[in-house]
């Protein structure tokens, strides 16, 4: 594991004590001493995670107005609402590390901060809503379950809460796709088409192979990442492949097979596509950021009014 470098003002003693706590499985809390690098990495990860929730509202939210039944519409509104809630928890968790929500949002809106690459793919049919619930939330849960065990208390607790809601979304998505896969020919075709488009992006969203993952070393040492991307991906595949097959769907990976240990092994991932999307050349990168910027800009007068009102009220009360 990568050996951390001390920042100016940090002593080896502090670092050793910090690492010993992590070894003992203690949670690090907001007011505890922590290395600057730990703080920096967590702010990066948590805010990125928060942004993913917020940007993630867009591809699914776009289908609220077109949900084909009152029940599905209600469920979808609730789901997107939950994502807003997750964004909120996560911004709060990051704030405990000394960054403001405003700073984080600015970083998102200016394109400096990243969010999950998966949300730069378009949602093209109603079945995408189910497939996102099943695959994207399914992949997210694997990652979040790991992070629920991470060493930073506020992040860990946010993850526990989020995971339980995501599990619910995952179930709903799966139920929807299984139903369509057994539904009318049109529904079956829709479900298969959605799988064809979302399978690889879901695989990629769990991150590059361990060798290409620049921050993994120190994050592992400090108990933030408890598993490698490839390990998490393997868990994801092992759970989802049999279920997808059972639903009667075809996984768009001709090289997929189950090895002697029972692990499902996937074919080569198109990492060029992944990096291209991460770098901003995905089909929807621009629209997603434009939509967030539009909401932010058009909401500016509301936030100003809110502030003016709050400053006004005590003055009025003093009248």
């Amino acid at each position, binding site marked *: 594991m990568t050996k951390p470098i001390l920042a100016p003002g940090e002593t080896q003693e502090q670092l050793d004590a910090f690492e010993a706590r992590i070894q003992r499985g203690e949670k690090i809390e907001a007011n505890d001493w922590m290395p600057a690098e730990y703080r920096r990495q967590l702010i990066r990860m948590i805010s990125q995670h928060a942004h993913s929730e917020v940007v993630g509202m867009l591809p699914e*939210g776009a289908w609220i*107005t077109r949900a*084909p039944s*009152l029940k599905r519409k*209600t469920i979808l509104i609730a789901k*997107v609402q939950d994502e807003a809630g997750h964004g*909120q928890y996560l911004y709060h968790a990051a704030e405990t590390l000394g960054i403001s929500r405003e700073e984080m949002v600015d970083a998102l809106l200016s394109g400096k901060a990243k969010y999950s690459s998966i949300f730069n793919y378009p949602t093209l049919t109603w079945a995408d809503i189910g497939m996102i619930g099943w695959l994207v939330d399914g992949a997210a849960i694997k990652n979040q379950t790991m992070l629920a065990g991470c060493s930073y208390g506020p992040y860990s607790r946010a993850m526990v809460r989020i995971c339980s809601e995501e599990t619910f979304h995952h179930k709903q998505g799966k139920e929807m796709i299984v*139903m369509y896969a057994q539904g009318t020919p049109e529904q079956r075709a829709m479900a298969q088409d959605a799988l064809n488009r979302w399978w690889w992006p879901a695989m990629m969203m769990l991150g590059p192979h361990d060798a290409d993952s620049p921050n993994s070393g120190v994050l592992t040492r400090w108990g933030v990442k408890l598993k490698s991307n490839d390990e998490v991906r393997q868990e994801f595949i092992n759970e989802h492949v049999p279920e997808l097959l059972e639903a009667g769907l075809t996984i768009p990976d001709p090289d997929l097979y189950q090895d002697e240990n029972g692990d499902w092994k996937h074919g080569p991932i198109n990492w060029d596509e992944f990096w291209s999307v991460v770098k901003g050349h995905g089909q929807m990168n621009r629209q997603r950021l434009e939509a967030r910027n539009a*909401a932010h800009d058009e909401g500016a007068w*509301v936030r100003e009014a809110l502030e003016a009102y709050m400053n006004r009220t005590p003055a009025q009360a003093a009248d």
Partner: protein
Amino acid sequence: QPALLAKLTALADDLIVLSHRNAEWTGHAPILEEDIALANIAQDQLGHASLYLTLLGELDGTDPDRHAYFRGAREYRNAQMMELPKGDWAFTMLRQYLVDAYEVLWFSGLKESRVTALADIAAKALREKKFHLQHTALWVERLALGTDESHRRMQDALNTLWLYVPQLFQPVEGEEALVAAGLTPDLGEIHGRWDSLVTPFLTDKCGLTLPTEPAPDLSREIHSEDLIYLLAEMQVVAREFRDVREW
């Protein structure tokens, strides 16, 4: 009786359409917390619509989803206020406030209905509506008393929306009989109470000016072009795959 069916249709359509407009904000609200709050209102509204539609279904066999997804604008019976485009945050909050005030009074009256099913719907919905009203009233106040811009926007919203208010209190054909039989509360009475609640709030508390322009006489059978676009979007998947029975 046909009046009750017409009334349930009007009540449900109001909520289907307004919840749709509110839900359009999900992911685009000015503050993340409001994405959550407004999504919550939209869900409750869909829930209340479903309660009405379930009762309608019990009475005449209507399927709620076919009712929502397979009628055109010429068959919808919502008040026009509901279908107006979402506008800015002031417009959305004021519209929801005006409707919340009306619904709180409506459900308070409906709670006394002799028809248990209606009284049950009202009891369930009333608690939620009181919470919505609190939320939207606070927003109206904050924006009306916030900055010059927010005040202007709120006043603009009021200038438009006020013309659509009378339609909220227009009875459907035969509604007098429902009132006489103790099924539904008297809209005229509710209108009076609504005025006493809303007018001083908007004027004295929020410093807004009520428009004096006469409100046009609107029928629930005529809609604006806005509803056509709303329904086109709302029904696109259901109609494209019309043979699908279950989603």
